[in-house]
């Protein structure tokens, strides 16, 4: 008989994350100093809504981290600003702010709709956009929506007493499931993106229930129409949940830009991203959803962008709006 003898020293089972110290620096300088002091023994946290559930049985399980450095209280990271063209969001901006701050909601029409589907009221008050981005879950909701706004990330680290900053496109920053271009000792400081108050926005999402679910598929759509409300002047689309990283749909955007809101063009556009589905499970289902969401997203965003009465194909509007 094939005998497999094994001495199982069971893994320690924790109910939670165990840490020796929990630091709450009040400034960026203090945060960098703490990171330097505890190099190799710390982990950065913000809202903790990914980190705490991750440290439970069945996932990471036995997590004992000597030092946790909580950056959520640093005023610089908590701020958000809007001007006519750009929006600046500190990394520790809580998701709920997209619903609570009317100026943000107007500049970023997609974000309140993304936020309302995100977890629940309570977690949204705590969860941060920086955590969503750096956690880099393939099912993240905020990341694809921000990608549709051409978002850039601002990163910083401390070196030889100086703070080194760099920037990169958000869709290049997220490189795989739970992987980003963040370097050792680096913090995500902020996200900067276009303000698009003239665009209509939609965020389509499906999960197992309506609150407290992660996306099986999500789609962020932004549409600006011409003065007559009959043609696409600008389109922005980004898909989440369909593979290792969120995808901006540049080819679909180019295809639609300048064209009419006709059924033929919408349906052709809806077909284009279907082949991008590369998730590990439920591919056929996700392809169907992508096709439907494309129509729903474009039609809803176009209506909200002020589409002329009758400009949208009524047979599609009847089903998808």
């Amino acid at each position, binding site marked *: 008989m094939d005998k497999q003898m094994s001495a199982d020293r069971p893994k320690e089972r924790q109910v939670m994350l*165990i840490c020796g110290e929990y630091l709450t620096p009040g400034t960026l300088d203090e945060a960098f100093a703490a990171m330097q002091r505890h190099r190799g023994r710390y982990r950065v946290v913000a809202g903790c809504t990914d980190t705490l559930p991750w440290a439970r049985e069945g996932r990471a399980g036995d997590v004992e981290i000597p030092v946790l450095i909580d950056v959520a209280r640093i005023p610089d990271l908590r701020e958000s600003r809007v001007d006519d063209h750009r929006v600046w969001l500190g990394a520790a901006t809580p998701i709920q702010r997209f619903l609570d701050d009317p100026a943000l909601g107007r500049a970023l029409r997609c974000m309140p709709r993304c936020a309302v589907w995100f977890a629940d009221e309570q977690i949204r008050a705590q969860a941060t956009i920086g955590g969503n981005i750096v956690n880099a879950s393939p099912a993240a909701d905020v990341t694809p929506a921000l990608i549709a706004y051409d978002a850039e990330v601002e990163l910083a680290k401390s070196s030889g007493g100086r703070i080194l900053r760099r920037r990169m496109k958000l869709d290049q920053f997220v490189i795989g499931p739970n992987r980003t271009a963040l370097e050792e000792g680096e913090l995500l400081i902020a996200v900067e993106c276009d303000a698009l108050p003239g665009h209509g926005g939609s965020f389509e999402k499906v999960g197992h229930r309506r609150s407290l679910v992660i996306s099986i598929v999500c789609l962020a759509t932004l549409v600006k129409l011409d003065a007559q409300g009959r043609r696409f002047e600008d389109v922005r689309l980004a898909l989440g949940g369909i593979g290792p990283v969120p995808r901006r749909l540049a080819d679909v955007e180019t295809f639609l830009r300048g064209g009419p809101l006709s059924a033929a063009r919408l349906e052709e556009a809806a077909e284009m991203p279907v082949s991008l589905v590369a998730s590990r499970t439920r591919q056929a289902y996700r392809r169907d959803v992508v096709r439907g969401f494309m129509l729903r997203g474009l039609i809803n965003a176009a209506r909200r962008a002020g589409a002329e009465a009758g400009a949208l194909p009524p047979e599609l509007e009847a089903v998808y709006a």
Partner: protein
Amino acid sequence: MPDIRLEATINGRKITRNAKPHQRLLDFLRDDLNLTGNKEGCGAGECGTCSVFVDGVLMKSCLLPVAKAQGAQIETIESLAKTGELSLLQKAFHKAGASQCGYCIPGMVMAATAAIRANPFADREEIKERLGGNICRCTGYQKIFDAVEMARDVQNGRLPATIFSEVEAEQGDYIGKNVRSIDAPSKVTGRLKYAGDMTMPGMLHVQVLRSPHPHARIVSIDTAAAETMAGVEGVITSADVPGEDGFGVIVNDQPVMARGKVRYVGEAVAAVAAEDLLTAKRALAAIEVVYERLPAVFDPDEAMRAGAPVLHDYAPDNITKHIPIRVGDVEKGFAESDLVVKEAYSTQAIEHAYLEPEAGLAYVDHDGVVTIVSPDQNITHHRHMLARIIAKPIAKVRFIMSPVGGGFGGKTDMIYQGMLALLAMKTQRPVRLVFTREESIISTAKRHPSRTRLRMGLMRDGRIRVLEMTMVCDGGAYGLSTGNVVHKAAVLAAGPYVIPNIKVDTYGIYTNNTPSGAFRSFGALQAAFATESHLDICAERLGLDPFQIRRINAMRDGAVTHTRQKLGSVSLSRVLDAAEKVSGWEAGAPVSRGDRRSDLDRDDIRPPCALGARFAAADKQEAAE
């Protein structure tokens, strides 16, 4: 470990305390401040039993490291009825009958309070949305939404506050009346103590070492290192059982902790009682178990085949229970039938997911009575079994049923009470075990997954002549309620229909899966799913309306079932009439429908789930801008 010096205002009272850096706000409130009104249901932000206000914003305290409360104003459920008078929402929850087991209710009341604070005029859809972070398993939410709407309307002067004091049932006249549940105030205030909320002086914390293997022989267990750890007061294995080990419902095939071998992933192997939880956890890591893996079987059909791995020596065929029922002449029935329809059906395992994970407290009292306090749905039976297991006279064993924070059948088995008794006896101190949600899911019984093969013979006019059913239920590693579940499945296999010829065989089978056990409906679901689905298919084949085929075969008052039970009154016809009416049923065979269904899209049917009730106005505005 440097402690955190925490300054905060808790329910209006300023406090300055030391807290451990790894504590969550929930631990700090419950363990250090004894504010046990808010509960822990999942520890992962999913259920909302722990919802508290932090600086006026509702948050899930299981996801908040305590340091995040530095300088904050915290309000727990205890803050709402501080003067003793219930808050508006608490009164409405009481009046509407919105609390059942009560475990989700403190969090739910907090979420409702937050919703009405955010928008005092929120409509039902918006209320649903704002309560989305809180889960309830008893009510189906309708009564909860009713309560929130009632409180909203009283607050806005649209309903009189006297509605709360109205009494529907007069003394002695309760039937058909709404009766106020007398324990609701204790639930809506969080005052009711569930087992996990209880503490005793000198109490130790218990943790359980569980099997990582589905089937393995235990070669050795070395507890020496764990036993000598500072703070560890007792370690037990099956060697500590003084009496006749084994519990169950019909067969006592399950040892208190694995004896000789493990039969499923998550089975208890050893347990530790220590001064604090962390020490107990660390002690588990110091226990060394050597296993010799055995071939395992996960499919009940495979387990029934000759040569399959055997789980229990007493059942070499892996059969826990077989219920055969024979009525009339099945072969003749098929020969006489105009139509024979054959199909296979399957159902999956389901977790009860009560909001209260298992918890229990045990102590040996001054008279030497071993006392177990737990949300146990079958205390008398368990008392008898435990007396035999710990070799004590029945008078020296006492079970106290603590409030059950949802059971649905899932708390009818003595899964952990035995370990608590042994540890209380060994340490002579009170001991408490509180399961994590993960532990509750991996180690406790589920609804039986089933596979049913069904063959039915019918006459052209819809009369059923014969039914032949074979159902195989996966009972998992131990018997628990399997015998009774497959028994009930067999009894209900023919549904409420008159069928002259019947052959039913239901089987409960041992596999190395998580044990299956009691779950409300108890075998009826699996059988009814097969029989009723089958009737719809037969109706389609015969061109009959699904209601009609049921009426044709319906039992009537005075009918005798296939297991010889005489039924005084049979309400089936009335149930069918009512169902047909409220569903707006479109009469006809299932094949006759066109592409537009008149029974859908009606005003009295709930729309599909969507979010964004609060955007309805914004939509128009966005387009206008």
